[in-house]
């Protein structure tokens, strides 16, 4: 049996297939058909200090080989996570990465600090790339200086492994990633959704209540893969994601330099997609005679320097 275990910047994973933030709630929604101890980890819905109400509807629209969403990070807040979700997830044997988001640096650091003593948390994913909120989110991830300052501040408040989820909506994602690395991040998560929109030609107005949204699904896979390829030279482990639908996609991301992959939109289409991907990768390794999945990481990418 091939070894699927990976270490993602200090987060030890039984396999390299994770539920992407915002696509898997806090695990309860799919638990009846996706056992949480069979996937690498669940990355929770983006969680803020206080509950957030999210954006006005409509919040999603289907597009060619993809979908746009503008949920606006609706979430029940930190207290609910700590009191209700983390204990339940621990009982399921889930490995939990908490995606955290705030409108200010202080909000991010307050959440990080509050979660520092939580043994049920395996790591944090800092969301500096949500395109659907006015303040915070992507605003922190578009400029190297603000990204550095935020990661630095959070780094000082947490001992948990710290991933930073990057936006593809930038001129030079590598430059942002280098700042994030220098500020003390343990890993990169790439990529968040691409800004997009759709217009209702009958009503002659944007479909989404938020006007623009984030594009996900198979349509963005080539973009995400190229981002991971370029990021592989930064020297931090990468959680690759963006349109991962099948095990072949996951293998591509690993070959480009990702240590693990996040699966999101595919779960909406095929709720057991993550389990299918784990199984497909396992069979691929056996067929190829590869003993450890880590041997694949960056194997196609001569520029890869995985930390």
């Amino acid at each position, binding site marked *: 049996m091939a070894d699927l275990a990976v270490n993602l910047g200090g987060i030890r994973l039984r396999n390299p297939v994770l539920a992407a933030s915002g696509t898997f*709630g806090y695990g309860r929604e799919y638990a009846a058909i996706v056992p949480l101890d069979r996937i690498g980890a669940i990355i929770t819905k983006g969680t803020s200090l206080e509950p957030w109400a999210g954006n*006005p509807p409509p919040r999603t629209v289907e597009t060619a080989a993809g979908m746009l969403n503008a949920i606006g990070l*609706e979430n029940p807040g930190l207290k609910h996570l700590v009191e209700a979700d983390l204990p339940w997830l621990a009982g399921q044997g889930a490995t939990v990465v908490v995606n955290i988001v705030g409108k200010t640096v202080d909000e991010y650091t307050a959440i990080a600090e509050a979660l520092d003593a939580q043994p049920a948390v395996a790591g944090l994913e800092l969301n500096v790339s949500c395109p659907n909120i006015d303040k915070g989110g992507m605003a922190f991830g578009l400029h190297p200086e603000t990204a550095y300052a935020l990661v630095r501040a959070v780094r000082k408040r947490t001992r948990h492994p710290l991933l930073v989820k990057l936006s593809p909506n930038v001129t030079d994602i590598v430059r942002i990633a280098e700042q994030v690395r220098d500020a003390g991040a343990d890993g990169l998560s790439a990529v968040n959704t691409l800004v997009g929109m759709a217009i209702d030609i009958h009503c002659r107005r944007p479909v989404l209540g938020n006007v623009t949204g984030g594009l996900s699904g*198979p349509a963005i896979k080539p973009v995400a893969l190229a981002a991971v390829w370029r990021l592989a030279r930064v020297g931090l482990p990468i959680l690759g994601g963006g349109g991962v639908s099948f095990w072949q996609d996951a293998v591509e991301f690993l070959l480009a330099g990702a240590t693990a992959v996040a699966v999101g939109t595919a779960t909406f*289409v095929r709720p057991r997609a993550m389990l299918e991907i784990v199984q497909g990768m396992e069979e691929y390794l056996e067929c190829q005679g590869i003993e450890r999945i880590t041997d694949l990481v960056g194997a196609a990418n001569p520029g890869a320097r995985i930390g």
Partner: protein
Amino acid sequence: MNLEQARVVENRLLAPGHRRMVLHAPAIAAAAGPGQFVHLRAHDSFHPLLRRPLSVARCDRSAGTLVLIYRVIGEGTTRLADRRPGDWIDLLGPLGRGFRLAPGLTPLLVAGGVGVAPLIFLAEECVRKGRAVEVLAGARSASLLVGEEDLRELGVKCCPATDDGSRGYRGPVTGLLEGRLDGRALYASGPPGMLRQVQQLAGEVPAQLCIEATMACGVGACRGCACRARGGAHRLVCTDGPVFDSHEVTFDG
């Protein structure tokens, strides 16, 4: 909640642009209640990508089958219309919070167009429980009264209303509500404009509304199918609904 490969038993034209599909899906049929829906994937390609939520219209637990009545309106339902007996369809369900029959009050079911689907299931449930039930069914014209066949089979009284007057009352189905509200509880399903009318006309009469929305996950994980709740908050159509008490939601804005 089950993920089940359902076999198509029948998929026939019911009315212009409307079809009736019978699926063999015993696990889902055993658990489904009126107002709940299935989230289905009719094909394997990336376009259209997402599943389609459809209300369950009938359920035969002993045969392990359920009925869907749908309007062929876009790419997803066009793919669904192409499926033949013997084909397999990936079904997730039953999902959502369905109708809750109010004790004591006689159920009056108000349907607009293909919105009749979940109300047929509710009528079937009333018949099974030996409760009197009446359906008011609206459509653009007589040929589009897609629930009549099933309701007749159930022996449920159905008063039609058509926009063009080709059958029954001429005008919106809500025009039939006047004088019929005493001692009743309303259960409505149809387009938003109709539901808003029902909400206004119901006043103090208890009413439940079955709402439609486009969905990504269908299980509450993505929070994409939010609708507006009274007081400015949101509710999820997939898990808080699709059936809401009338006073919970608003169709304004």
